[in-house]
């Protein structure tokens, strides 16, 4: 396939921005169009941003007009603290449905659909297997709103895959992500002076580094890898082991029973533990990551390395604070840079002043 034309949804989200930056470096990708209801949060070279809500009619017009062949949907909200449950539902379920609707229909140019899902799809229960493989379904129905939304969104994608066999569908179920820039429930918890734990439990935890997630999405966009895949670093740690690697102390202060009662006071103290994480703090979760490796993907970090890198970042961040400038999107400036005939585009090393990806 030459001259790939890619549409990214959720360009303003962390993953949307990171992925757009990553894809800009590939010459075989001719066009990158990002859509979102909000302004992009990361500096982009050649990605075109279109401000549009998750309305399928509008997205469909963009898809057809630009003859998009690859749609990458990385806008799923996987942390119930990050947004209200109504916004989450709207984004995760209704948004996914609308984007799938925009990609389907007779004469649709879309040939590939990549969906970033979450390991919350599997849930977290006492009688779980120690390593979930992609063929396993969660043993119990979801009992938090977020997990329900993720299961619904994924079943809509699976439905789409069955009904439109001409589109190659890749679903990536990502484990909990750690990294210097991403904001997840675990990065917040590990940033606290001491890490709270549930008394009497030492759950197994597995992480994936943020760069590995970006590369995993990239791998799915550039190669033919239809199917559902777990994305998780090698190795499963226990929470105490991870906290030890970070060089922090742990506080077993969360009671094993009656967690619903303690959640309110904790929230007032400024510690918000998302509902879907309570069971994870008790029973933990491990994923089998072999399928994506078999599909040709190589991880840059193991779980342990991801935790250690994050520990280095935590130790450095008080020193580095304030060094970086915040990026704000200015439409006029971006349009000038992209379209003005006075801008010298062929300048060598235009990429050099940007942080390299990965290591």
């Amino acid at each position: 396939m030459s001259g790939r034309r890619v549409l990214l949804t959720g360009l303003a989200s962390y993953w949307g921005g990171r992925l757009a930056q990553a894809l800009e470096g590939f010459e075989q990708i001719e066009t990158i169009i990002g859509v979102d209801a909000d302004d992009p949060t990361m500096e982009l070279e050649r990605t075109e941003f279109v401000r549009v809500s998750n309305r399928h009619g509008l997205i469909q017009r963009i898809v057809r007009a630009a003859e998009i062949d690859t749609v990458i949907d990385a806008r799923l909200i996987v942390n119930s603290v990050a947004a209200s449950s109504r916004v989450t539902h709207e984004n995760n379920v209704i948004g996914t449905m609308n984007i799938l609707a925009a990609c389907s229909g007779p004469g649709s140019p879309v040939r590939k659909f990549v969906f970033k899902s979450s390991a919350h799809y599997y849930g977290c229960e006492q009688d779980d297997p120690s390593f979930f493989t992609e063929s396993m379904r969660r043993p119990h129905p979801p009992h938090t709103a977020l997990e329900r939304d993720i299961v619904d969104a994924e079943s809509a994608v699976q439905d789409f895959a069955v009904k439109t066999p001409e589109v190659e569908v890749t679903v990536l179920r990502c484990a909990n992500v750690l990294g210097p820039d991403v904001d997840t429930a675990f990065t917040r918890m590990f940033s606290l002076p001491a890490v709270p734990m549930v008394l009497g439990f030492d759950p197994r935890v597995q992480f994936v580094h943020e760069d590995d997630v970006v590369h995993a999405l990239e791998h799915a966009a550039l190669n033919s890898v239809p199917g559902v895949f777990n994305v998780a670093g090698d190795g499963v740690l226990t929470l105490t082991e991870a906290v030890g690697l970070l060089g922090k102390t742990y506080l077993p202060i969360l009671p094993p029973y009656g967690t619903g009662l303690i959640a309110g006071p904790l929230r007032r103290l400024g510690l918000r533990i998302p509902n879907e994480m309570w069971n994870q703090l008790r029973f933990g979760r491990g994923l089998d990551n072999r399928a994506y490796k078999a599909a040709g993907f190589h991880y840059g970090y193991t779980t342990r390395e991801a935790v250690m890198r994050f520990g280095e970042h935590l130790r450095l961040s008080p020193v580095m604070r304030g060094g970086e400038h915040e990026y704000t999107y200015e439409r006029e400036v971006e349009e000038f840079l992209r379209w003005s005939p006075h801008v010298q585009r062929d300048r060598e090393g235009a990429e050099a002043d940007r942080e390299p990806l990965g290591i």
Partner: protein
Amino acid sequence: MAPERTSLARPVEPDEQTAPGDDALLPAVPEDAPELMPAVEPERRLDDWGRSERVEGIFDRTIVDFFYRYWFRVEAEGLENVPSEGGALLVSNHSGALPPDAAVINKVIKEEHPHPRPVHITVEHFFKGYPGFSMLIPKIGCVAAHPANVHRLLHDERKLVLVFPEGRKGTEKLYRDRYRLRRFGRGGFVEAAMRAEAQLVPLCVVGAEEAAPIFAHADFMQRLTGLLYFPITPTFPWLGPLGMLGYLPAKFKIRFLEPIDTRELGGAAAVDDKALVQTVSQEIRARIQDNLHDMLAKRKSVWFG
């Protein structure tokens, strides 16, 4: 013999196996690809199952060693039946309020086998719900008895795995029912071994029944505490939770029986043959029961063997 409770119309228990998902999108994973397994990180003290060499070592050197050498004075025979490499599923009878048999079997292989390997002990997932216990249990080498876990251990990691097909039915039986094997589950252990094409090694443990006899069950207390069961033993609940460790000094004898090679049964291809699975399960049960009778007939004293 105990009343046979196996029937064809057995109820389907939901916790048996995680149901397969919508397989329209499932990728094909190569069956044997050891290079895809996570590499062992030598700096780590724990493995991916949460097993801790350090914690296990502390237990092994102290309490397990004491019971193994001086309290139970364990004698074993047939250790040559435990393979030195490759996946093998050890199948044992099970008893005792807080069963001592698992730790003793692990220790026997560590001490007396020419090529000792750690044994992964499958336990009920209920333990994952008890605070404190849930931290300790994986660290000393126990994993939840889930078919997917057993398969990964046997097939992908080629480890020794110990199962008690009687499950809690074995441990909660009363003293008067000693050495009468309960129903062997639904043959799930045979299926797991066949799918992984691993060896099945039946074994018998004599002594555990007398070491931790249960005289009665306090159902009221069980409901009150939410424990799996609330047994009345010589030391429990009189000495508090530590009373669960109040074993009597019975003489332990362990006999490993001739292994069954599941590849000769047809291996992974024959897993769906339920009749074969049930037959093998019944045969293993009968062999363990016969050998138990044989060992009991030869035993002159409960305490001195």
